[in-house]
């Protein structure tokens, strides 16, 4: 526990001083404004919950892909990866705490989206606060698990930037971050359901529903399954990548 909290505190301190944080938080803000404007033009105030949850999920994904996914590469570039590996603390646990902290930061994006909704005169009402809390926690945990997979992919790749760029918007589109999966072509929908964003969208939006919060159980189970799969896969891949780096001497830059 001390290790987790200590690493999270350290990571938060690092993030406060980095320029990418405001940059990544621009995404939810801009998309929230765009969505509110489009809803206004389309005269569809009933879609208000999309314009809050969607921008937040965009922030969650961008943070996972552009920030958390870079973690080991950044450490290697700064020559802090070797001291990290040489320390007794489990590198996997340290890494999980780091990317988990990044996921937590995405909550700022949610606040931005809520503020924008209020500014446009379409404040959202949370009818099921426990569902919101539960959905939020599951989303952040799923994002952390996904980040581990990305870390492993990017540390093993020479073209990490290319992959980061190329998958950023496709995942948002396929994953149903701002639109329901039902809007996407049928052949794509099974793929969408493999991405945690679509389930997170359904689950968290259910908390704004004036009627019963539908689909909570299914979405929760799906998010838990994706978390376990992603976390397991990511952890294993990272472990292998680090082991390989110790074998071929690539923990440090040449």
């Amino acid at each position, binding site marked *: 526990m001390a290790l987790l*909290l*200590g690493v999270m505190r*350290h990571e938060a301190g690092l993030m406060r001083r980095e320029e990418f944080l405001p940059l990544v938080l621009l995404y939810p803000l801009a998309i929230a404004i765009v969505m509110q404007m489009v809803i206004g033009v389309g005269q569809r105030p009933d879609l208000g919950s999309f314009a809050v949850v969607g921008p937040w999920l965009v922030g969650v994904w961008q943070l996972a892909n552009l920030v958390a996914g870079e973690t080991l590469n950044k450490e290697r570039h700064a*020559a802090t990866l070797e001291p990290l590996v040489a*320390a007794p603390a489990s590198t996997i646990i340290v890494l999980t705490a780091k990317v988990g902290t990044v996921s937590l930061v995405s909550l700022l994006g949610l606040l931005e989206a809520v503020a924008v909704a209020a500014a446009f005169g379409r404040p959202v009402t949370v009818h099921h606060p426990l569902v919101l809390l539960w959905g939020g926690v599951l989303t952040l945990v799923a994002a952390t698990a996904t980040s581990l997979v990305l870390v492993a992919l990017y540390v093993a790749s020479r073209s990490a930037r290319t992959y980061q760029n190329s998958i950023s918007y496709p995942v948002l589109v396929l994953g149903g971050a701002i639109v329901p999966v039902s809007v996407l072509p049928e052949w794509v929908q099974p793929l969408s359901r493999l991405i945690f964003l679509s389930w997170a969208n359904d689950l968290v939006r259910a908390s704004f529903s004036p009627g019963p919060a539908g689909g909570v159980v299914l979405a929760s189970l799906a998010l838990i399954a994706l978390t376990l799969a992603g976390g397991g896969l990511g952890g294993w891949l990272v472990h292998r990548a680090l082991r390989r780096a110790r074998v071929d001497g690539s*923990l440090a830059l040449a």
Partner: protein
Amino acid sequence: MSITTRELRRWFGAGRDRSIALDGIDLDVEPGHVHGMLGPNGAGKTTLVKVLTTLLVPSAGQARVDGWDVVEQARQVRRRIGLVLGGERGLHDRLSARENLRYAGVLHELSRSEADRRAAMLLERVGLAERADVAVEGFSRGMKQRVHLARGLVGDPRVVFLDEPTTGLDPVAALAFRDLVGELAAEGRIVLLTTHDMAEAEAVCDRVSLLRDGLVLATETPASLGRLVSHYERVDATVVDVAAARTALARLVGADRVTELGDRRLRVETDTGTTRAVLRALVDLDVEAVTTSRPSLQEVYLHHFGDRGMRL
């Protein structure tokens, strides 16, 4: 408590492209003194440190730190070591020295209060207490090096590895750093230091291993390393007739062992078998002054590693 390696090998690449960094190293380092690994760039010093600190898996052979195998028991090794890599990088620049040390404490599984306490104590020890809360990016090279050293000591390690720690430091900063290193050995720790700086090896190390092409040529005290130049001794003489003296001495020891130093001085590299004959010859040649000596560590180094081929 010791560092032990047996037939330690490490290569990179395969087949024709294989390059051998460690070529069967046997090493024993005991606690209580500073052990230097001396050699030029590419000798295998950093590779050796990385193997011993679990950052690199050996290709063959065995290495144990404080009794724990560096591959099979890496976690136990990590609990006992401190690593000082040095250089401009390797610290979180935007964080203060204190924050960097606190984080290192977390990684060494210290509680929050213990990490804070050790950070404060170490900053005091390395003379950075007054700049503890300043971002490291504004530090001089020497100050950064002290943060590196402090970080390496956060876990109160039994074994401290320092990889070329004074590279890039000015002489004053390097001297101060060496004093700190000396203290560590006096505290009963094992200290392994790599360097290509002969003066540093002579000043700091109690024992020095000469490393070349991944092999340890010998391990001696710095003073004894002079004997490494085979069993060479050296005779310096001031003669009357330089040409005649050169011819006569060349016939005895070979022309390549006779060097003119200017001012009618000649240097003759001898071994214990020929020193006497050389001295007798010099007396016959009407010598004005004669001294015998052993080569310095620098000369040993240059003799073994020679001109590294730098051309302008």
